[in-house]
């Protein structure tokens, strides 16, 4: 009995994994179709592939004995078939019906594990029947045959579907993501072990000089390293998903949010094909939902207000992904009213914060705990979480978030994220005989420190670097090694966006690909450290949280 239940449990997970994206694609297509129809475009090429997707959902639902999603998918299929045959009925009413149905379908698929309430599905099917009947009474029998034929045809996979399915059966395998995690973990161990053997080799070479045998060993090690590197590339590739996997869900969300507030908002996305590690993507969705909700609910004005301000009645929400020097940058912008500086000032004063003179710094206050919740909560926008939670999640992913606001013109949030969480190209440095890994993507330069290079301004180290003055802090003080030194031999310039900072270190040990191990909660929540790793000699080193160190809010 239990095994049966388990098998079913896994099957139902498979069902959700397969059908949920399909249902979401269908929902998005309906939202797009609504717009196209309003613009007088028939949107045939959008409508055509929907039948196959709905049919797959219907078939899989039937297989699992899930009546509700099956009947909803079936009803949507019928509506699509009708609209396909009769372009005259492609109007707002039809679009609203389709969008409502797809919302219901997504919900039913998502919650397939639970026993669903059959009422909503039954109600929807009834509404669809009325919709279809109205048409039927108005038209002749030929179209009806068409519908019947259509229905019969759907009992068997359509040629397009066969093509789609053929693709998946021949070369695509579905793998539990945990297996990919495990693969990466083992690969990481392999890389550490390779580094350990390389370390042993160097010890031997120092002791005995490079003999022929040792030279062979060196070559074998180099070749092993290259192979592992290639393997890493392949493993990482299997973990990548296009950003659109998350982006695709937003047009529908925005539509719902906007409609509930009698607003009109269009979503413009670009860079959906930019790849990102699934582990990053999964955790990115919630912060993005929060930011988008904020924009639609608070940022973008009502049509009236926009009209008075000389803006188009319809607001625009931009979601743009791009790839920038090994990292992924996501920009979320709206053309709404922008941040309210006076409100931020008032809030900052009430919290007893120091008021920054610079507008950009003033705006970055909204990411502080307790800042954005009070005024901006609404049932949809808030769920009680503030922008500080968003910023925290982004930081935990090793990323940064910045906000730029122009009064009356809108707000842009810029998220700068690592491509992956697992393997980090790093610079290994030493401070007071402790070794640390600095993510290479944040290292702008390493500088040999000379006497009189670093000046003290307001008790803070300042150096001239590439024509600019940058703050240089002591690595020992930053990391609490117990000795603050005014002189160390090097400093590492870390940078991200327009933020830069120097950190004094004693030695630069070299570049290394490290396998990131997350911080054990037993350790507490250190601010300067984002994780740990095992180095070639088997010892543990901490990874500097460069994103957080670069954050203006952190002094020292």
């Amino acid at each position, binding site marked *: 009995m239990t095994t049966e239940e388990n098998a079913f449990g896994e099957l139902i997970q498979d069902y959700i994994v397969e059908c949920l994206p399909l249902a979401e694609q269908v929902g998005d297509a309906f939202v797009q179709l609504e717009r196209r129809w309003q613009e007088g475009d028939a949107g045939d090429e959008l409508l055509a592939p929907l039948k196959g997707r709905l049919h797959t959902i219907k078939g899989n639902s039937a297989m699992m004995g899930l009546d509700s999603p099956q009947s909803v998918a079936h009803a949507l299929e019928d509506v699509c078939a009708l609209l396909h045959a009769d372009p005259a009925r492609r109007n707002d009413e039809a679009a609203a019906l389709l969008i409502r149905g797809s919302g219901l379908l997504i919900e039913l698929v998502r919650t397939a594990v639970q026993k669903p309430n059959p009422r909503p599905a039954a109600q929807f099917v009834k509404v669809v029947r009325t919709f279809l009947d109205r048409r039927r009474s108005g038209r002749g029998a030929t179209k009806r045959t068409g519908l019947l034929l259509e229905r019969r045809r759907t009992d068997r996979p359509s040629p397009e579907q066969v093509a789609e399915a053929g693709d998946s059966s021949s070369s695509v395998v579905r793998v539990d993501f945990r297996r990919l995690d495990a693969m990466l973990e083992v690969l990481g*161990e392999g890389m*550490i*072990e390779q580094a*350990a053997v390389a370390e042993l080799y160097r010890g031997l070479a120092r002791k005995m000089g490079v003999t022929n045998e040792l030279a062979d060993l060196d070559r074998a090690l180099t070749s092993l390293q290259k192979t592992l590197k290639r393997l890493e590339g392949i493993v990482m590739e299997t973990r990548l998903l296009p950003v659109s996997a998350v982006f695709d869900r937003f047009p529908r969300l925005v539509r719902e949010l906007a409609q509930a507030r009698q607003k009109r908002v269009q979503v413009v996305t670009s860079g959906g094909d930019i790849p990102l590690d699934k582990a990053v993507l999964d955790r990115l969705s919630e912060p993005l939902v929060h930011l988008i909700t904020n924009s639609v609910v608070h940022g973008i004005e009502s049509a009236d207000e926009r009209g008075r301000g000389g803006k188009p009645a319809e607001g625009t929400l931009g979601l743009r992904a791009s790839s920038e020097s090994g990292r992924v940058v996501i920009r979320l912008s709206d053309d709404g009213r922008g941040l309210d500086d006076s409100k931020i000032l008032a809030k900052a004063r009430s919290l007893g914060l120091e008021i920054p003179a610079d507008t950009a710094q003033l705006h970055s206050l909204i990411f502080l705990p307790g800042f954005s919740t009070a005024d901006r909560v609404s049932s949809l926008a808030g769920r009680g979480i503030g922008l500080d939670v968003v910023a925290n999640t982004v930081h935990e992913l090793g990323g940064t978030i910045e906000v730029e606001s122009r009064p009356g013109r809108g707000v842009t949030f810029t998220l700068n994220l690592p491509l992956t969480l697992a393997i980090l190209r790093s610079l290994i440095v030493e401070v007071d005989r*402790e070794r640390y890994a600095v993510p290479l993507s944040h290292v702008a330069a390493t500088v040999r420190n000379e006497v009189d290079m670093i000046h003290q301004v307001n008790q803070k180290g300042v150096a001239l670097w590439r024509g600019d003055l940058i703050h240089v802090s002591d690595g020992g003080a*930053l*990391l*609490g*090694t117990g000795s603050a030194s005014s002189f160390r031999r090097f400093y590492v310039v870390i940078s991200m966006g327009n933020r830069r900072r120097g950190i004094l270190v004693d030695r630069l040990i070299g570049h290394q690909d490290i396998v990131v*191990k997350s*911080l*054990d*909660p*037993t*350790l*507490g929540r*250190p*601010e*300067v*450290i984002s994780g*740990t790793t*095992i180095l070639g000699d*088997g*010892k*543990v*080193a*901490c990874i500097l949280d460069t994103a957080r160190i670069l954050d203006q809010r952190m002094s020292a």
Partner: protein
Amino acid sequence: MSATPARSGADALLQFADELQQQSSSAEAPSVGPELHLVTFALDREEFGIPIGQVREVTRVTEITRVPQARRHVRGVTNLRGRILAVVEIRSRMGLSPAEITPRSRVVVVGIHDRTLGILVDGVSQVVKLPVSTVAPAPEEVLSASADYITGVARWNSRLIILLDLEKLLLLPD
């Protein structure tokens, strides 16, 4: 990498216990009534005991890496066969000064709920079985609110073993 061959923690512990048993064969008590199965270790001059069920293994101290801004009682992290293990110093939780690491120092790897962590101890550990009847509550004068992690004191074979509640000792905020 660690030179220790991979073997299960329990094996290592049992072998270790066997060695100790051979050293002091008098350590076996006549079994009467319910017994406590403990791993004991030394901190300063006192002997402490924790239930053997919570102990995964006992290892020698390899290098422990300090973690900046970690909680006060955290000594650092160490590499336990490719896994990163947080090592806590219960001495500071007990108001003792931090330990010097000596060749006798050990890390007792314990599992509490789903967490695995290491406890740095001064002396060689031992596995003992002793009758529950030897355990008495600790004298009230030595207990305070902050010492509620002491569950009792066992007097056994002219030894005094202080019994610890690891959950209370380790999972508290500092």
